[in-house]
């Protein structure tokens, strides 16, 4: 039997990359694959994945459920849940390419759905919350079924292998999006399995992460109070839910969310002006359990754009660049130059300093 997170420890780095066109112009997955492939040696073949935004223009208002099933039995059981809770517009296998390198793939399906009207009304929830709760239920109560992504006009494509192999497997060169993020995994502490590959997603949010979070249990316990179920026992999952809580449920502006997760040191706080000090102090106090400790560089993707962030002690490398409407972030500068030889601007990103890429006309994620 495959050992999952928590049952095995593999001590061991990672690679992340993100490309966005701020005008919303779509481009194929070709460039993001080349970018992440350049950092091949930062991964070890135990996980690779991509998040793509703007890829389903034919179903922009449907939730696109990307699913992994261990077998037909788990698929059929889960589809009963789907039929009870959703109106399924269309469902079927996600097209994949047979490749030599990718083996032991689960059943990979995709459903474009809307919440069932009567169920939604009965629940008294908004559509997003309804969907989020359904995702939590499937991941924790349906053995052998795993939601890879659940947002609108976006999808996560991930698995066990090197990222460039995963990209080829999922035919990402045939999709077009305006924002792509990618991850090459070198598992720290936990095994490589299809559901455990990055990105980790919920609704429109996706996270790719290089690092290790030592505050995982404190973060998890806090998130569980708001109904999140951390069923995958990975630190990255908790970051995804933390952003969902702060940005979607609590409606906080992005800079406040960043302050909560990568809070300034108390020593830095002492030098702020009174108004800022009061604000940062309040955020640190209210959300002290969401402070993320440990080394990390992450890219949070959403339909409106992305934010890339380093831990406040700057324990992981992160480089950003701009060229016209394009904005790039990656673990290494060469991964950007591979797809953009002469950026207008390149810079090393500081600890706790967010790099924000937003679609034109949008001012919040």
């Amino acid at each position, binding site marked *: 039997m495959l050992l999952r997170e928590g049952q095995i420890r593999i001590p061991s780095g990672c690679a992340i990359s993100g490309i966005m066109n701020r005008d919303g112009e779509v481009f194929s997955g070709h460039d993001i694959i080349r970018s992440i492939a*350049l950092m091949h040696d930062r991964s070890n073949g135990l996980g690779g994945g991509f998040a793509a935004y703007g890829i389903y223009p034919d179903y922009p208002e449907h939730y696109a459920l990307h699913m992994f099933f261990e077998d037909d039995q788990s698929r059929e059981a889960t589809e009963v849940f789907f039929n009870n809770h959703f109106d399924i517009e269309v469902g079927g296998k996600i097209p994949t390419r047979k490749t030599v390198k990718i083996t032991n793939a689960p059943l990979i399906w995709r459903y474009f759905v809307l919440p069932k009207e009567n169920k939604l009304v009965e629940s008294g929830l908004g559509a997003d919350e309804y969907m989020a709760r359904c995702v939590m239920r499937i991941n924790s109560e349906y053995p052998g079924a795993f939601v890879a992504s659940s947002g609108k006009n976006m999808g996560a494509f991930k698995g066990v292998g090197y990222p460039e192999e995963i990209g080829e497997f999922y035919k990402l060169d045939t999709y077009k999006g305006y924002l792509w993020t990618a991850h090459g995994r070198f598992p720290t502490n936990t095994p490589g399995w299809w559901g455990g590959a990055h990105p980790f997603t919920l609704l429109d949010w996706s996270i790719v992460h290089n690092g290790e979070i030592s505050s995982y249990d404190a973060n998890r316990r806090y998130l569980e109070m708001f109904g999140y179920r951390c069923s995958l026992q990975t630190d990255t999952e908790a970051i995804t839910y933390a952003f969902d809580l702060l940005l979607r449920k609590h409606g906080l502006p992005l800079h406040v969310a960043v302050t909560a997760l990568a809070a300034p040191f108390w020593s830095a706080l002492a030098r702020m002006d009174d108004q800022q000090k009061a604000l940062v102090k309040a955020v640190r106090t209210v959300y002290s359990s969401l402070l993320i400790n440990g080394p990390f560089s992450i890219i949070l993707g959403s339909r409106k754009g992305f934010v890339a962030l380093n831990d406040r002690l700057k324990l992981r490398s992160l480089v950003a660049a701009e060229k016209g409407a394009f904005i790039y972030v990656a673990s290494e500068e060469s991964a950007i130059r591979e797809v953009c030889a002469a950026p207008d601007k390149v810079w090393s990103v500081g600890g706790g300093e967010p790099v924000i890429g937003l679609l034109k006309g949008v001012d919040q994620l």
Partner: protein
Amino acid sequence: MTISNASAVAINAQGLYYKELNEKIRAALAAGAATVRVHSVNGQRYIGTGLSGNASLIVEGTAGNDLGAYMNGLTVTVYGNGQDGIANTMNAGTIVIHGSTGDTLGYAMRDGEVYVEGSVGFRVGIHMKEYQEKVPVLVIGGKAGSFFGEYMAGGILILLGLSGREGHPIVGDFCGTGMHGGVMYIRGNVEEHQLGKEVKVVELDEQDREVLGKYVGRYVGHFGGDAGEILDAPFVKLIPFNKRPYGNLYVGV
């Protein structure tokens, strides 16, 4: 590999895996090349790592991680930016970068000189060391990120702030945290709160001016500029309070 004359060799690194590239560089040096020029480099790691001798290695493109790590000699000139871990535990030689670099430049460096025209990332010059006549030197034309010279045990760090990200200070926070040896010279001023608890600011004396003059002169030799003008600004000298700041950490008091 094309051999243009007996002692100069050019290598195209386009699409080459780092292992192959470094094998070619080693082969060229073993065959007696005095100059090896590697062009179209993009992210290949370990260029110049562990190499000895007096040859000149020219790198065109974005040099990958650990350029010149454990290097024992050689003059490496990079036309482009460098990434992380350049001059990691370097023993001897010179690295000249016509661009900027990433994090942990000069980590645990033991001797030799590194000149960076632009800015550097985070944790630069950490745990540099020195022994008798072996004194490593890092000269940076732009700005540096946080943890500059953290746990520094020896050597010379010179930070000029001639360029760099607008709106950012010449050096980030936690400068010299845990420093217990060596010296830093920072052009202009450093805010008290940016310094680690283990460093103190002292006035420069004649000997310091001499050291600065020598290395700023070499910086200008590599990248151009007016040494007199650069040296004319005030400098801050940082040294550790104590050679063993943690000597009493686990001792009962």
